[in-house]
C-alpha cells in the first residue's frame, strides 16, 4: 500500500477526461494545423512539404486576395470599437443609474446575443429582401423610393449591410459585461464624488470608466478578435459575395478547404488567424497596462 502513489494515480484519473478532450481537440490540432500549413495537401494523397510557399502565395496571390478579406475584418473591428463599444458603454452607464424598467431593458438588449446566428441571419436576409423586405417596404412607404437598394446584392452596400446585424447582435453582450463591471464600483467612491459636487457625467468619466478598465480591456479584445474570426453571419447573409466583396478570412478558409480541397492553404489561413488573434490580445493587454 503505497499511499502517495495511489494519491497520484487518483489525481491523474480525475484529470484524465478533461485532459483527453483538451489535448485531443484543442492542443494537438493547433500543432497539426501548423504542420499542415507548410504542406500542399488535398486531403487524399500524402501531404507534400513545401516550406513557406503557402504563406508566400497567401499574401501575394491576386486570386485569393487575403488583403481584401483582412481589410474587411479590420474595418469590422474598427466599427466595432468606434460604434458598438461606445454605445454599449453608454447603455451600461445609463442602466446602472436608478432608472425605471432597468431589468426589462437589460434583458431585452441582451436577447439578440442568445439567438442562433442562422436565425438572425435568415431574418436579416428577409429584412434586406429587395422586393418584400421590411427595409425597402419602409423606404417606399415614406416616399424614399430612390433610396431602396438590393442591399446584399450590390457591391457598394453589401459589406455595410452585412456588418449591421453583426454589430447589432453583440451590443447587448458588451453592455452586459460593462454593466457587471459598473456594479462592482464601490458605492462610497461615487457617492463621495457626488457630494463633492461632481456631475453624473464627471463621475462616469473620472471614476467609473477608470475603475472598469479591466472589463473594457476584455470588451476590446473580444470585439477585435471576434471581428477577425467573424464567420456565421457573413456566411448566412452573403457567403463572401457578391463577387467576393464581403469576403472575410474565415469564409476564405472554408472555401479553400471544402470547395477547393486545399487543406494546406486552409491551414495556413487558420494559423494566420490564430497568430493575429493572439497578437492583438497581447497588444491590447500591453496598451491597457501602459496607460496606467
Amino acid at each position, binding site marked *: 500500500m503505497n499511499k502517495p502513489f495511489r*494519491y*497520484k494515480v*487518483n*489525481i491523474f484519473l*480525475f*484529470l484524465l*477526461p*478533461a*485532459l483527453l*478532450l*483538451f489535448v*485531443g*481537440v*484543442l492542443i494537438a*490540432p*493547433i500543432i497539426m*494545423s501548423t504542420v499542415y500549413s507548410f504542406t500542399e495537401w488535398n*486531403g487524399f494523397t500524402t501531404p507534400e512539404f513545401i516550406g513557406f510557399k503557402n504563406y508566400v502565395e497567401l499574401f501575394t496571390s491576386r486570386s485569393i486576395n487575403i488583403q481584401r478579406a483582412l481589410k474587411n475584418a479590420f474595418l469590422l473591428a474598427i466599427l466595432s470599437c468606434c460604434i458598438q463599444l461606445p454605445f454599449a458603454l453608454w*447603455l451600461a452607464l*445609463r442602466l446602472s443609474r436608478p*432608472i425605471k424598467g432597468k431589468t426589462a*431593458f437589460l*434583458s431585452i438588449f*441582451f*436577447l439578440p*446575443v*442568445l*439567438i*442562433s*446566428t*442562422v*436565425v438572425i441571419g*435568415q*431574418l*436579416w*436576409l428577409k*429584412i434586406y429582401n429587395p422586393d*418584400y423586405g*421590411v427595409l425597402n*417596404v419602409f423606404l417606399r412607404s415614406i416616399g424614399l423610393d430612390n433610396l431602396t437598394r438590393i442591399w446584399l446584392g450590390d457591391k457598394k452596400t453589401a459589406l455595410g449591410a452585412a456588418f449591421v446585424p453583426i454589430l447589432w447582435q453583440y*451590443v447587448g453582450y458588451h453592455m*452586459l*459585461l460593462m454593466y*457587471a463591471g459598473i456594479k462592482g464600483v464601490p458605492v462610497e467612491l461615487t457617492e463621495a464624488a457626488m457630494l463633492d459636487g461632481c456631475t453624473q457625467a464627471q463621475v462616469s468619466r473620472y471614476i467609473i470608466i477608470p475603475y472598469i478598465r479591466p*472589463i473594457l480591456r*476584455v470588451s476590446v479584445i473580444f470585439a477585435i*478578435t471576434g471581428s477577425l*474570426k467573424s464567420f*456565421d453571419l457573413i*456566411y448566412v447573409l452573403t457567403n463572401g459575395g457578391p463577387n467576393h466583396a464581403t469576403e472575410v478570412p474565415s469564409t476564405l*478558409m*472554408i472555401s479553400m*478547404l471544402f470547395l477547393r480541397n486545399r*487543406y494546406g492553404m*486552409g491551414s495556413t489561413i*487558420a494559423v494566420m*488567424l*490564430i497568430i493575429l*488573434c493572439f497578437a492583438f*490580445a497581447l497588444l491590447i493587454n500591453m496598451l491597457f497596462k501602459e496607460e496606467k
Partner: protein
Amino acid sequence: MNNSLSGTRNWRKIVVYVILILWALISLFPVYWMLTFSLKTNSEIFGENVVGLPREWVWENYKRALHTGNMPRYFLNSLIVAITTIVITLAASVMATYAMTRLHWKGRKRMNSFFMLGLTIPIHASIVPLYTTLAKLKLLDTLWALIIPYSAFSLAMGILVCTGFMGDIPYDLDEAAFLDGCGVWGTFFRVIAPLMTPAVATVGIYTFLQCWNELMFANVFVNSDKWRTLPVGVQSLSGQYTTDWGPIGAALSIATIPTLIVYIFLSKKIQDSFIAGAVKG
C-alpha cells in the same frame, strides 16, 4: 434658474428614455417579426400586412414546417447533442476542478492556467485536423463529430465556473469526510459533487446555448440530412423554400422558442453565466 435647470434635466431624461425604448424596439423587432410572419399567409407578409399582428393565424405554417424537410429530426439531433455535451462537459470539468482545487500536488495552478488557454483558442485552429481525425476514426457524419469538439471547447468555461463555486465549499467538509473514512473518490461523490448544483446550472445553460447555435463545425463535420442540427437544417430549409416565408418563419421560430423559454425563466442566471466567462478571459 432652478426651474430652467430641472427643465433641461427633464428634457434630457426624456431623450434618454426615447433612445432606450428605440433600441429596445430595434433589439426585439427581428424576433417579433419572425413570430408574427410565421403565422401569416404570403399575401399578408408580402404587402397587405407587413409588420402588424397576423389577421388570420395560420398555424398551418407550423404543420408544414414540421412535415417538409426534417425539422423534428434536426430538433431531436440538436437536443441530443446539447444534452450529451452538457453531461460530458460537466463531468470532465467538475472532476478536473476537484483535482486542481481540493487535492494537493505540485503544478496544479499551472494546470489550471493551461486549461484556461481554452478560453482564447479560436475554433478555426482545429477545424482541419479535427476533420481528418474524425474521418479516420469513422466518426465524421455522426453526432459524436459535434459532441466531442463542443465538449472540448466548453471545457475551459466549465472549469472556470466550477473553480469559483468549489472555492466556496468549506475545506472542513473534506477533512470531516476523510476522518469518516472516505477516500478521495468517496469525498468527491458524496460531499463535493452534490454541492456543485449551482455550477451545474450555470455551465449547463452556457453550454446549451453554445451547442444549440453553433454553425461552423455543424456545417463541416456533418453532411447527411439525418444528422443535421437545427442551425444547418434551418439554413438548408431556407435555401429550398425561398418564396414560402410563412413555413420558414415557423421553422426559425421552432429553432428559437426553446431559447426564449429558457431565457424567460432564467434570464438572470443566463446573464451571470455570460459574465463569468468574460471576467477572467
